[in-house]
């Protein structure tokens, strides 16, 4: 048959650009509590309706509803709120530290705090995390030292990574936090390998990996799902869909045609699409997937549907490519405010306690900041000796690196 029309190339374009008023009126949001919760031993295909649904627990009044309610006790919920607030206070100080020239670069996770904090709390402390650069909440929820994190950002004399890594590319074996790579997506199949090793050894620990919506386009994403499915590795494959990959909206990762959770379907893996700003939903979905992984039922793909409320990094200005104020209009709200409202509704939390806690945490971060700065900041020092740049390339230094270290003259 003759083709009557000339072919047209489709280039995705977000609906709104700077100057437009934020508008999410066409976003279809299932009611909180409406998504069914399959048994953790269900067949993967019996979860596949959930990849087009949205698991929500907290309703618009802050009440926990439906089968996904993890029914956490108030103390656990208050700890979750505290870790999220601490993450926010930490981000605030480090963002300002970059603005005042104490470091070169910083990345906040504003609006996405529930993802890392709730997931860290739902996992066991010995489970291994393969994060991206926006899961600082994992370290914070595992009570890792803020001073240690800041020393990395300042590349100072106490930086365990010896000034080798871009700020926020933390690494802590002790905290079960894998060294962050700036090459996006590489950690996703590595987590599968770690999980395969854990299963090979008959260990009890599982792995969890995070990737952004944009980076699901990378081949490594595909490899992770393939290897994870083939070897039924005990791993959680989390996609943080925060809508934006620097300036590219999620349409450039294929989000116009389907959901990211739906990637699970073709691999025969279970998939869950979760309100990423709902602490309880994130916790419950993580708990569900972890229980499956521990039962040798393999990986689960989880899409955490959220919004990157701040810039990509301190080198980015989102007002140049998306409507100003969009984050404040996000229909699923702010994770801190939502959990606060829930706790207030339960009668176990108040505005006064909330405000007092923010002051307390700000002071904790300030004290940590002062201590970290006493060990040096980027540009003003002190740093570790530059001669250490030749260490750890190999376990034992070969002749050519010894020679080059001598040539450096330190």
């Amino acid at each position, binding site marked *: 048959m003759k083709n009557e029309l000339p072919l047209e190339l489709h280039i995705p374009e977000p609906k709104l650009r700077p100057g437009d008023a934020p508008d999410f009126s066409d976003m279809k949001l299932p009611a909180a509590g409406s998504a069914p919760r399959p048994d953790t031993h269900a067949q993967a295909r019996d979860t596949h309706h959930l990849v087009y649904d949205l698991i929500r627990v907290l309703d618009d009044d802050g009440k926990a509803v439906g089968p996904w309610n993890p029914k956490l006790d108030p103390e656990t919920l208050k700890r979750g709120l505290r870790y999220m607030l601490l993450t926010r206070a930490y981000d605030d100080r480090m963002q300002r530290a970059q603005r005042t020239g104490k470091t070169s670069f910083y990345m906040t996770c504003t609006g996405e705090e529930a993802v890392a904090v709730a997931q860290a709390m739902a996992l066991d402390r010995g489970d*291994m995390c*393969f994060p991206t650069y926006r899961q600082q909440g994992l370290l914070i929820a595992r009570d890792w030292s803020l001073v240690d994190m800041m020393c990395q950002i300042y590349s100072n004399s106490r930086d*365990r*990574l*010896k000034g*080798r*890594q871009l700020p926020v*590319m933390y*690494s*802590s*074996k002790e905290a079960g936090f*894998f*060294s962050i*790579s700036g*090459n996006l997506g*590489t950690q*996703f*199949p*590595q*987590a*599968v*390998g*770690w*999980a*395969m*090793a*854990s299963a*090979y*050894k008959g260990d009890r620990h599982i*792995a969890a990996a995070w990737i952004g919506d944009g980076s699901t386009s990378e*081949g*490594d994403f*595909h*490899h*992770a799902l*393939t*290897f994870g499915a*083939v070897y039924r590795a005990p791993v959680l494959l989390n996609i943080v869909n925060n809508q934006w990959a620097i300036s590219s909206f999620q349409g450039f990762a294929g989000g116009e045609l389907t959901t990211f959770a739906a990637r699970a379907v073709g691999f025969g893996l279970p998939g869950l699409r979760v309100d990423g700003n709902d602490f309880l939903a994130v916790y419950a979905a993580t708990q569900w997937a972890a229980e499956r992984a521990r039962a040798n039922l393999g990986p689960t793909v989880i899409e955490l549907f959220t919004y990157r409320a701040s810039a990509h990094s301190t080198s980015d200005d989102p007002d140049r490519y998306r409507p100003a104020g969009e984050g404040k209009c996000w229909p699923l709200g702010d994770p801190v405010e939502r959990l606060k409202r829930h706790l207030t509704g339960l009668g176990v939390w108040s505005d006064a306690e909330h405000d007092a806690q923010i002051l307390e945490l700000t002071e904790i971060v300030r004290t940590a900041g002062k201590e970290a700065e006493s060990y040096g900041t980027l540009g003003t020092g002190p740093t570790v000796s530059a001669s250490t740049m030749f*260490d*750890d*390339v*190999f*376990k034992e230094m*070969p*002749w*050519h690196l010894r020679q080059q270290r001598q040539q450096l003259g330190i």
Partner: protein
Amino acid sequence: MVAMNMIQALRSAMDVMLERDPDVLVFGEDVGFFGGVFRCTEGLQQKYGKRRVFDSPIAEAGIIATAVGMGAYGLRPVVEIQFADYIYPATDQLISEAARLRYRSGGEFTAPLTVRSPYGGGIFGGQTHSQSPEAIFTHVAGLKTVIPSTPYDAKGLLIAAIEDDDPVIFFEPKRIYNGPFDGHHDRPVTPWAKHPASEVPEGYYRIDLGKAAIVRPGDAVTLLAYGTMVHVALAAAEEAGVDAEVIDLRTLNPLDIETIVASVRKTGRCVIVHEATRTGGFGGELSALVQEHCFHHLEAPIARVTGWDTPYPHAFEWEYFPGPKRVAEALRQAMEA
């Protein structure tokens, strides 16, 4: 001691390490039940079970990535990339991840993986089964690159590579899997059994990485080679009637600079041979190092005999392959200079 070809020697190395260390795993495309397209892992799954020796999806990046994760856990994966020509999808995981993990984590996480891969030409494999990409990896800080030339070396070096706590690229010259090859493609194939280096101990032994071997002592000119080209170099020295000192580098990075420098200071001349393309090849690095360390001892320009700067052409294997005639000619020119 038993006579082994290189395939049997490599298999024996993996056998020994699977036996000795429960943290050693072997996986890759077709390596499990079938035993690999070149048979290097034949029988290992049957002996050690499919938990320890298994097939993988056809995804080189996924193979290396999962090996990096296993290494971070504490295992010692030995993975096969079926042909070196297929390794490019995995370069991000090798170059940006495996090679830098120790460094970027301040020594907390390491990637002690061994990447075995058949490489090089001489088998009419065309442009996707003949390449020699070693210089891509020797250029990377944090990777070791090893290339054996005999069954004895192949086993001892592979055991050392598996035991090494850093990532090792282990390229196997597939043209000499079954017998040494001196570049005379029109002559009958010689099996390894007739070569002294096919006498291989059945048990454990290692050849330390970073140590070259002088395979033919000589005084007139230093001839640097590795892999298949070691055998071509030996033939060329005989045919040119030049008393060349032939050095088999065995490990390209870290390089045994002392052996090279001592030889060139003695001979005053140096010819470098490799199958890989010339521009940006490892021969350029060798040439620069010899010049830096031996300038006042040199009596002739350093010469390189290499593959041409073209893709590997299927029908013109022997016009491409730097055979003994070209090497002998370079030796004569070095002596006349």
